[in-house]
């Protein structure tokens, strides 16, 4: 019996959300009196994988098959299932990412496991009862879900668990082969296109987000959003009307039918706060709203607010961040 953690890697490094997942998994292992092993997908150096010891992982498995550098659902599912069997994993933890959701759902059928996605807290284990708390109703509610199967798969929402950093702890790194065949790569991508990210911060992984709405009056004013985002090392985002009008690309659209984010800081500039937009951001830790309309509904969901013109306020904020050094 053990806990298996799925860590996603990119450009040789473990993704930030996977450090959170590893920390979650090692704490679950502690609760259950067992150890946590990781299976790596994507590309990472052995040194970076060994560093997962800082998150409480004792052993990291990886398959050196080069075609695993891109996400292939069939191959990833087979690899993780084989690692789960090898480790006799009772609990499998992965990120609530596009990869995590796609693989987790296939794995749950293959391993006859209960699956909970969008999980925001560590589980409660009471005798044989295993309960996790997850977001529901587009962030407007929380649900405590009992996983009734013998095996459990948990997809952890980004930014909901603090990553552990126990310096000096190293995990052992071992090669592992799931004996993947060509058939497992039938749904391999033909082409991968990476998008330009302002300041290099990925929106779904971002710890801070600066977002603009119709109040920005046009794409030509987006430098004000980008300047503040750059100063804060934040990602940029936008509301639905902005992406519908092609001021900004779709992948920046945050809201009920766009990307759901849960950063520590969400700064909304010139966004009135329609309920569909709020559904995509309301699990952010701190929400700042800048709007010239004091009646904008977003102020009701905000922690801090400035009633004022975004064109006047944004440069002042950027300047103040730069002065912090």
């Amino acid at each position, binding site marked *: 019996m053990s806990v298996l953690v799925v860590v996603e890697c990119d450009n040789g490094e473990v993704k930030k959300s996977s450090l959170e997942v590893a920390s979650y998994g090692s704490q679950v292992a502690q609760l259950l009196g067992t150890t946590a092993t990781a299976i790596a997908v994507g590309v990472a150096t052995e040194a970076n994988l060994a560093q997962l010891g800082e998150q409480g992982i004792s052993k990291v498995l990886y398959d050196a098959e080069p075609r695993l550098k891109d*996400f292939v659902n069939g191959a990833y599912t087979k690899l993780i299932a084989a690692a789960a069997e090898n480790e006799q994993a009772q609990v499998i933890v992965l990120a609530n990412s*596009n990869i995590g959701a796609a693989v987790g759902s296939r794995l749950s*059928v293959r391993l006859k496991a209960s*699956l909970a996605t969008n999980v925001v807290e560590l589980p409660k284990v009471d005798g044989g009862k295993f309960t996790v708390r997850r977001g529901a109703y587009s962030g407007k509610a*929380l649900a405590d879900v009992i*996983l009734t199967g013998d095996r459990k798969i948990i997809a952890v929402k980004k930014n909901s668990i603090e990553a552990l950093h126990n310096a000096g702890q190293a995990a052992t790194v071992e090669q592992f082969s799931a004996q993947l065949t060509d058939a497992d790569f039938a749904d391999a991508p033909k082409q991968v296109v990476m998008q330009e990210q302002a300041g290099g911060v*990925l929106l779904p992984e971002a710890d801070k987000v600066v977002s603009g709405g119709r109040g920005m009056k046009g794409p030509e004013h987006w430098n004000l959003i980008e300047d503040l985002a750059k100063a804060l090392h934040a990602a940029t985002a936008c509301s639905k009307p902005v992406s519908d009008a092609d001021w900004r690309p779709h992948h920046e659209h945050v809201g009920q039918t766009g990307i759901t984010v849960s950063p520590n800081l969400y700064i909304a500039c010139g966004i009135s706060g329609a309920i569909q937009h709020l559904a995509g951001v309301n699990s952010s830790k701190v929400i700042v709203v800048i709007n010239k309309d004091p009646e904008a509904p977003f102020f009701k969901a905000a*922690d801090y607010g*400035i009633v004022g013109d975004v064109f006047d306020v944004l440069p*002042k904020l950027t300047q103040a961040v730069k002065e912090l050094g």
Partner: protein
Amino acid sequence: MKFLVCISNVPDTTTKITFTPDNKEFNKAGVQFVINPWDEYALTRAIELKEAQGSGTVTVINVGEADTEPNIRKALAIGADDAIRVNAKPTDAFFVAEQIANVAKEGAYDVILMGRESIDYNGSQVHGMVGELLGIPTVAPAMKLDMSGNTATLEREIEGGKEIVEVNTPFVASCQQPMCEPRIPNMRGIMTARTKPLKVVEPVGSGARTEVAEYALPPKKQGVKLIPAESAGELIKLLRNEAKVI
């Protein structure tokens, strides 16, 4: 080509969320239910592809009790040809996936489409489970879907980019923006929907693997702290010293 589109019946996007006194179930009283907005992308794209091919069928499936029929009729009014309702309360994603996989197997559908997630449970699980139960590929979440013969070309969203994936039928895909512009039913569609077939079947399978113990509402916000626009820079100090987020 035979398309199967899975639709969920969800509370309208502007609904104030409340629960029954024991916090075990969503309180449906006075709530308007709609087709899950993500599923509308799947439905419209299936209809567009059928129209482009000049042949084929679009079947809608919903796992739900009789009160979901107005939204099934709406899907027929938008342009689906027929519908199947699996007569059961959708208890969890695995139960729903079993029902869809069973219907899909019997109907030998080429393409199974649904939204990337439902706006009530937000599980994003059913597409992968259906794919695995049927032993066919799943592409999720797809932003673009084109068909040429039995081969589909899809754009799949990944963190920070997209991937172009080619798969042969049969396959499952979950759909999201900007795949298409969802359609609104017109009067002719509404009239013809009344006579389109809606078959009711009984559920199969082994049941759910999760159980909701309780729902809760997130903690209430303390209220907004307003900073005068002329001293906007003060906000940054508060975010560092008080909120400790920068």
